[in-house]
């Protein structure tokens, strides 16, 4: 009896070990997740990616420089799984009503640091100042967007609607801080450069965006932005140049979202509907990158469904606040790739449009006004089947 029991116990253990692989959770398919690298990184690049990933996850505390006023304590808290943010991490910017600049820069603006370490008082929006809320965007595929040439952006723009299609996209322009290295093929205008990242397209490149985010989101100073968000005085850097560079490389080398069910008949029909009702006039299906030292990013065509330009979205989405030369009713066309995976980073729900006010794809479509008004009207007149196909397509992205 004893020998039999010991035998069966040992047999169980052996079975367990031989079945080890099968007992462990399998990986999530690449098209179901937003994180992961582009292909073809060298060993050195992969190590830099990993350092950047680690820095992206670093949680700052008082001892390591957090705040004392801030929005959040880490990059990852706003971009869970490298996806879109949640209303919890929605940030507020205030002060600028028109293209004449922000009178609150240097006085606590443009970003509201609405949280603080114990013992400190967070900022409040000055009485009467215009403001808007911004939901953090997804990070994936940003390296591709960064490499679209200024010439291509200008080729898509039509500020005076010369083709009379009701769409008049234009790039945003801004004076750049000294630390931003301008691209060799940049096409400036009166000393200002085309900017493309952010809801109002106010950041020039991922380096500009990252330095700002450290400073304005977390109250972390760097050699590039040494002004403390609370005292408004320069202090020693709280994050190193190398770390900033690593995070920028991490963002540049995150893969592009992979479409799911692309060959599905309903999804394909949805793409046709998407184009037929005019969505693609702004949400351009295909863009291409210029030359890059990273082969996977160099001279590639990709499907981000954006033109990176500003469009007037009507009074319903006009919060009265703006950045750069954009009007307060103008918003940059957000890339739609990765849209279907948004709930995977937003707690299982959709929080769409610039401030997360739309909690479904249809609600987001119906909030389009201004240059998007005609497409919205076209959507409303679609048959239920076509609407369903369009939503299926958007969910597949």
């Amino acid at each position: 009896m004893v020998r039999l029991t010991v035998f069966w116990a040992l047999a169980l253990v052996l079975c367990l070990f031989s079945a080890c692989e099968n007992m462990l959770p399998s990986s999530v398919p690449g098209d179901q997740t937003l994180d992961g690298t582009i292909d073809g990184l060298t060993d050195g690049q992969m190590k830099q990616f990993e350092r950047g990933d680690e820095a992206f996850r670093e949680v700052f505390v008082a001892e390591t420089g957090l705040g004392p006023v801030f929005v959040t304590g880490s990059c990852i808290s706003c971009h869970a799984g490298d996806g879109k943010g949640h209303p919890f991490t929605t940030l507020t910017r205030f002060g600028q009503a028109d293209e004449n600049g922000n009178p609150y820069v240097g006085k606590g603006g443009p970003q509201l640091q609405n949280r603080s370490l114990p013992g400190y008082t967070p900022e409040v929006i000055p009485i009467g100042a215009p403001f808007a809320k911004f939901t953090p965007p997804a990070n994936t595929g940003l390296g591709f967007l960064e490499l679209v040439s200024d010439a291509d952006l200008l080729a898509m723009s039509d500020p005076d609607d010369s083709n009379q299609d009701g769409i008049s996209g234009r790039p945003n322009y801004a004076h750049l801080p000294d630390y931003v290295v301008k691209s060799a093929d940049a096409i400036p205008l009166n000393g200002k450069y085309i900017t493309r990242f952010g809801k109002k397209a106010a950041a020039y490149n991922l380096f500009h965006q990252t330095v700002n985010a450290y400073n304005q989101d977390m109250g972390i100073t760097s050699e590039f932005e040494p002004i403390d968000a609370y005292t408004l005085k320069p202090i020693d850097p709280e994050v190193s140049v190398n770390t900033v560079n690593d995070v920028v490389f991490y963002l540049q080398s995150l893969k592009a979202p992979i479409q799911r069910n692309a060959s599905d008949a309903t999804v394909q029909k949805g793409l046709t509907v998407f184009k037929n009702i005019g969505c693609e006039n702004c949400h351009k299906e295909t863009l291409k990158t210029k030359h890059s030292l990273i082969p996977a990013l160099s001279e590639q065509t990709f499907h981000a469904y954006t033109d990176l330009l500003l469009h007037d979205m009507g009074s319903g989405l006009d919060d009265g606040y703006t950045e750069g030369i954009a009007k307060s009713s103008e918003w940059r066309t957000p890339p739609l790739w990765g849209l279907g995976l948004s709930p995977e980073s937003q707690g299982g729900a959709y929080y769409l449009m610039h401030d997360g006010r739309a909690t479904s794809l249809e609600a987001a479509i119906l909030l389009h006004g201004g240059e998007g008004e005609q497409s919205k009207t076209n959507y409303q007149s679609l048959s239920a089947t076509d609407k369903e196909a369009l939503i299926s397509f958007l969910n597949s992205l």
Partner: protein
Amino acid sequence: MKYIIAINMAFLCISLNGQTNFHNSGDTSMLLLNSDAMYHRPGISGKNLLFTVGGYIDVNSYYGATNGSMTGFSFEMPDLAFFLSSNLNKHISFLSEAAFESGAEKFKLRMAAVDIKFNKLFNIRTGLILNPIGAFNQNHDGPNYEFVDRPMVSTEILPSVFSNVGAGLHGKIANDKWAAGYEAYLTNGFNDKIIDNELDRTSLRSGVSSYQNTNGKPMFTGKLALRNKTAGEIGISYMRCIYSELDAAQRSVSAMAIDYSNTFLAKRLSIRAELASVHVDVPDTYLQTYAGQQMGAFVDVVGTVLERPIWHWDHAKFNIGVRLEYVDYNQGSFTETGGNIFHEIRSIVPGISFRPTPSTVLRLNYRYQQNVDFLGNTPTKTGAIQVGLSTYF
């Protein structure tokens, strides 16, 4: 290093003396409580020595994956603990425990307390005291458990093994059917790292400041325990302190725990369970990732399926069991949406164990765990096969 030398010297003395016996200072005719665990550890003492030494070791191996990403195979030695105790006279005793944690990464004095016994119900304890919050903190020796990992409620919600310098009273009355005990201590407490730490969540463990009090206010820890021979033991414990005065408000942290343990069917089936809840006064203007309320619980059910002489061992046992556990790092709701804040871990751990002797256990566990992030996104899934040995020495 001086601890290691002292411990080695103690072993040397005993081996020279050549006499060993099994130390047990309690009265076995009376029911024991979890708080008695520190008095009833196996140990050895020399014939002419005034002290008793002992310890235990945990060695584990781990093979697992999270969402298909293999962590590979690794060995761990989470605990190598040494006990040293002595009866200075019939009414004064000294108890201590020191341990290497996480291999040799950290050497920590876990307990060094002097008990002055006046009578059953009035005894003074002072020194570095194991705070009596929950049952596990006082009864944490690896060989007492059939599972490789410590319960998460005891390590993630409560900061076991958790001790502080302080003083207080304890007492117990017992007969062969009933036992009741109390403990009440004032000790050093927590600091503001509870809500300012790199875990990005409320963490009592991050705020432990055992040896110095940062704000001049002591922490109270108290426990009441009642045991019936048939119904088992239930304990209710509570602790509270001020952890921060940074923003002029006196911000407090408190924890409450309920524990239960019992054996059935002539000790062939045992149940241990513990539930703990933590409340922290977090400033309204701070991050919601730092919770005002946390909770966790676990239940272990273990049954003996075979008990008989096997090979060299006269009282060998095979057990099977399962642990269910849950921790919620953040029981709040989002200010912005009103929705639930998640940040939870759920796990189920079936296992088998073999005890060649009561003080040694070989364990084989399979851990299946789901981690839900702060926002409630799709959980990450972890599976792990764990094999471990834990034994008193």
